[in-house]
């Protein structure tokens, strides 16, 4: 078992930003520490708005590590994400991470996978694809959104995901109308593979149910409000089915969905 990378506090600079849908932004953060963040599945915490702004740093998945920088995928949902998505290039950012346990440690011997992303749950998938590709594993990405206005630019997505299926709940955008779990269920019926899923809790619960039906492992990115991200405040602690608790920021964020008590969480 490889040890979790020790988190560090680094400074970065916003190098570029790009709008990918009505409310989704790609940020490219240049930092000398970039390579220390090559930890698939992990996240960081970030601040960089004019002070006094939001009090707590905000957690974001590592989308990619490239060209001496970290790339993030951020959906604008409230004050901090609004500020971050509107920053001008050159702006200094404070980065704490990588946080959590990398997939290389949680799943030391990866198989071929189905990746499932609901909404901005797409964020961690690029680094995951890089890792699976390097491990000689095949993967197929299922990407679902509620409506077309949230869907990221399909050309941008195709540039890093060579095999993906997009769905849109209300049929208003590109890809197949309906829920992302529909093509996933079909794929599982043809060829069962373990799943890596990131998105809203109802999606994760549904994916866990499908995985149980097809006898494969559901690895899910757990969602919990976080204050410290470093395992000291217990904001992110979730109950386990067998009793005991799981600190998402420290022991996750990825966990086997079957171990979680979805009712109590």
């Amino acid at each position, binding site marked *: 078992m490889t040890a979790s990378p020790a988190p560090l506090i680094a400074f970065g600079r916003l190098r570029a930003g790009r709008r990918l849908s009505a409310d989704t932004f790609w940020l490219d953060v240049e930092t000398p520490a970039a390579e220390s963040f090559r930890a698939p599945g992990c996240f960081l915490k970030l601040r960089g708005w004019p002070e006094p702004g939001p009090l707590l740093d905000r957690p974001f998945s590592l989308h990619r590590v490239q060209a001496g920088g970290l790339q993030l995928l951020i959906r604008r949902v409230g004050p901090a994400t609004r500020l971050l998505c509107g920053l001008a290039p050159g702006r200094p950012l404070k980065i704490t991470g990588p946080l959590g346990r990398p997939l290389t440690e949680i799943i030391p011997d990866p198989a071929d996978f189905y990746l499932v992303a609901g909404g901005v749950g797409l964020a961690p998938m690029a680094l995951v694809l890089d890792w699976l590709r390097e491990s000689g594993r095949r993967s197929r990405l299922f990407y679902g959104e509620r409506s077309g206005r949230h869907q990221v630019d399909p050309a941008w997505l195709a540039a890093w995901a060579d095999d993906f299926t997009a769905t849109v709940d209300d049929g208003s955008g590109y890809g197949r109308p309906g829920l992302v779990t529909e093509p996933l269920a079909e794929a599982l019926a043809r060829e069962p593979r373990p799943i890596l899923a990131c998105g809203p809790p109802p999606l994760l619960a549904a994916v866990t149910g499908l995985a149980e039906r097809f006898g494969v492992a559901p690895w899910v990115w757990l969602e*919990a409000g976080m204050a410290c991200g*470093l395992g*000291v*405040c217990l904001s992110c602690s979730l109950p386990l089915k067998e009793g005991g608790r799981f600190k998402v920021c420290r022991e996750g964020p990825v966990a086997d969905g079957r171990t979680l008590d979805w009712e109590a*969480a």
Partner: protein
Amino acid sequence: MKEPDLTARLGPLTLKNPVLTASGTFGYGLELKDFCPPAALGAVIVKGLSLSPWPGNPGPRMFEVPGGLMNSIGLENMGVEAFVTRALPPLLAAGATVGVNILGRSPEEYGRLAARLAGTEAHFLEVNVSCPNVAKGGAAFGGDPRAVDEISRAVREMGGGKPFLVKLTPLVSDIAAVAAAAEGAGAAAVSLINTLPGLAVDLARRRPRLGGGLGGLSGPAVKPLALRQVWLCAQALKIPVVGLGGIMTAEDALEFILAGAEAVEVGTATLIDPRAPLTILEGLKDWLRREGLPNLGQIRGALRI
């Protein structure tokens, strides 16, 4: 110039400096050691411990409000037994001065916690009285001087002489009276404030923002209230006062010392930057050097109102 003298005295305890960690924001003491070595601080106060492990509240457990943080962790903890056998020895080995925060549901439980910790090498106890009193229908002990007296006596009688601080809740009509009860029952010091009880509402869903319903407010928003309560206690007591509540910078810490605090605790700031207690400590030294002062004695309690 000579290094400033930062020692702080809490009754029989002499701490190497006045910067402590606030319970619940520094885990069991070693989680953040790479950012903030526990031995560098005046003391490390660990997460509140109960007799048996507590699961805590359902989520969401935190919600940010302007200038502050609401939490309802619900006092999740590993229980005193696991702490004493697993977490305490490595923390002591790391050279930390250790304060153990304890919480119970009755004076008797506080006494049993003190008894369990009496024989350990932990340096002192911090008695969190902001807990629901099961016998009194869940009303907090911390508002009632008689309950604080009873708990403090139980801790003194069972604690084998280990020094203890009583940590006070700010939402009381007469903070000095509650603090005086702790003093009268033999506390080495009082620490305040614990979080300010509050409620955050999710209008769209017509329900509380926190899974536990009510919560506790911390961070910069509570600092003016904390300073007032610390000042009132420092005026009224002979024992030292440890001040906390919204301390984010060395200047904040100095304001508490000016208001009469012997030492300070750093809480929410550590959740934002794990180096915060150390940064604040360095800031205190820099400030003393800049002011040409040999120690904090010249400003401690110097605030005139």
